[in-house]
């Protein structure tokens, strides 16, 4: 069959209707030299040859199967059980599009419902949506929601300076043109090193504040105590604003869920839950909130119900919030969810269970603390993280981070930490290192040996 739906006669009729002779005439405004340039391409290859070439190119990448990785900073190398790929590769899930029709989409709807339920359990919230694009956009959606909850009357958004820098940028991108004041995250607000004082954020609260956002564990891996965060939550609520927390979902397998210390909305990057790092995406942003805000929540929500014969079934619910009904009055006009990534997260959580997730979190925590203590004992290296930390920590290197990283990569086959000086000038020379259950003790010792050597060069 032909994949071009229009016949020559139909095309001629359309061209005649707009008054041109041929399709090329439509491009007359483009300079002749640029119109149909000769593209210099190599000769065609057979399927076998092109596969070999692509294989060769892909092997130039430093991939996680062949390198030891101590890089995190928002994307995390966790083990993905093989059952995850087996389930999500089923064609019923792999090809399904928007599940608007419950009569033909019960399986997909049920997996989304289960994903939402597990996100609620993990965060201590009452309602979760079917996901957003990634952690950064789910934070931006939380800001839009907080503004919508107060009917746009409150215009100030307070961000902790320890939130992932790209998340803070995304919030600004999403809200540009809305006339909001996004404040609080000037790196100057950070104290010595990576420490920061919740009191400084409290001081910014006023009657114009729509929401205040913290990340916990923060971008540097540090955690505040539930009591301190509850104190902050109380102050936020006192000011009539919403308290939003961004959290690494793996950490919630071990530490207090944000719902227990006063969060109204919990968001975060869902990639650590059964999704591969895959060069930065696709990921998923999880989003959960208290029940009373559900009408202002963006995105899609699946609910459990019964049919006319009393049998359990799943449907999209609360659809009046969505763009196709609320249109310009919707909280957000992005309703896309990352269904396949959310399915992976759901299968991952169901596979590990509570105990398994806790074990993963404990392994991350203990390995990070082992690595930090070993590195801090090296000459010239200083542990900058002072607060309790989860799976990431900050170290000051004796030489520029970019130099150390190049050496680790080329001489030792190690992917080093995130160079904090790129974003935080006062942290030049500091690296953010990450360990997960994927770093065996021998690999950590190997990193320590490599750092000792590069430190002495």
């Amino acid at each position, binding site marked *: 069959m032909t994949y071009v739906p229009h016949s020559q006669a139909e095309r001629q009729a359309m061209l005649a209707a707009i008054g041109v002779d041929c399709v090329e005439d439509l491009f007359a405004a483009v300079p002749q030299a640029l119109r149909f340039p000769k593209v210099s391409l190599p000769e065609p290859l057979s399927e076998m040859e092109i596969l070999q070439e692509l294989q060769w190119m892909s092997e130039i990448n430093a991939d996680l199967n062949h390198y030891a990785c101590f890089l995190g900073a928002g994307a995390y190398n966790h083990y993905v059980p093989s059952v995850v790929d087996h389930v999500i590769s089923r064609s019923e899930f792999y090809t399904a599009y928007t599940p608007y029709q419950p009569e033909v989409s019960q399986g997909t709807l049920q997996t989304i419902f289960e994903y939402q339920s597990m996100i609620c359990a993990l965060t201590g919230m009452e309602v979760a949506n079917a996901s957003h694009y990634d952690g950064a956009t789910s934070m931006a959606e939380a800001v839009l929601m907080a503004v919508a909850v*107060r*009917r746009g*009357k409150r215009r100030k958004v307070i961000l902790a300076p320890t939130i992932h820098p790209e998340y803070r940028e995304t919030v600004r991108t999403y809200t540009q043109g809305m006339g909001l004041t996004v404040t609080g995250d000037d790196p100057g607000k950070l104290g010595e090193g990576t420490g920061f004082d919740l009191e400084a954020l409290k001081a910014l609260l006023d009657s114009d504040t729509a929401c205040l956002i913290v990340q916990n564990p923060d971008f540097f891996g540090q955690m505040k105590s539930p009591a301190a965060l509850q104190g902050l939550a109380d102050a936020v609520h006192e000011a009539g604003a919403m308290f939003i927390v961004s959290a690494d979902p793996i950490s919630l397998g071990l530490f207090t869920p944000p719902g227990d210390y006063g969060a109204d909305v919990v968001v975060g990057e869902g990639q650590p839950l059964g999704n591969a790092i895959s060069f930065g995406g696709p990921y998923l942003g999880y989003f959960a909130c208290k029940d009373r805000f559900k*009408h202002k929540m963006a995105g899609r929500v699946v609910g459990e119900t019964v049919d006319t014969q009393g049998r359990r079934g799943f449907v999209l619910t609360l659809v*009046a*919030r969505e763009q196709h*009904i*609320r*249109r310009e*009055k*919707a909280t957000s006009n992005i309703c896309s969810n990352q269904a396949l990534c959310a399915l992976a997260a759901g299968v991952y959580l169901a596979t590990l269970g509570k105990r398994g997730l806790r074990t993963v979190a404990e392994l991350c925590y203990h390995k990070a603390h082992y690595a930090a203590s070993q590195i801090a004992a090296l000459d010239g290296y200083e542990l900058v993280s002072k607060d309790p930390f989860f799976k990431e920590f900050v170290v000051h290197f004796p030489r520029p981070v970019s130099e150390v990283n190049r050496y680790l990569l080329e001489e030792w086959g190690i992917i080093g930490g995130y160079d904090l000086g790129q974003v935080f000038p006062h942290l030049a020379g500091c690296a953010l290192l990450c360990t997960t259950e994927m770093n065996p003790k021998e690999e950590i010792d190997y990193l320590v040996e490599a750092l000792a050597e590069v430190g002495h060069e």
Partner: protein
Amino acid sequence: MKLDKDCRYAETHEWVRVEGNEAITGISDYAQEQLSDVVYVELPEIGDSFAKGEAYATVESVKAASEVYMPIGGEIIEINGELEARPQLVNEDPFGAAWFARFTIADPSELDDLMDADAYEKFIAEEEAKGGH
């Protein structure tokens, strides 16, 4: 279509009933009919102030979400919490049990811009004749 003779009406189909310095407001029977089944009513916070014509509430039906406007300006002193649990009241009793909010009247002269029941009935007939509402 029901009308309440004691109310005054805005062209955006809200009613207001004056009680001394205060007033209560809701949406008309005609408005609820146009919306079809109401599934959610979002009300303002007590203490919020709105100018005449400013959106202060939202009604979600199975077919649309619509803003509800203040017929005259004022400060919200009471909201009808019953609507949260029973939004269908808007369809059942728009002039009674489904009042939206009580507020203090900022400027009584703003009432002069509103229609009485007869004028409102005529206004609807004209709108219907135009084919729009």
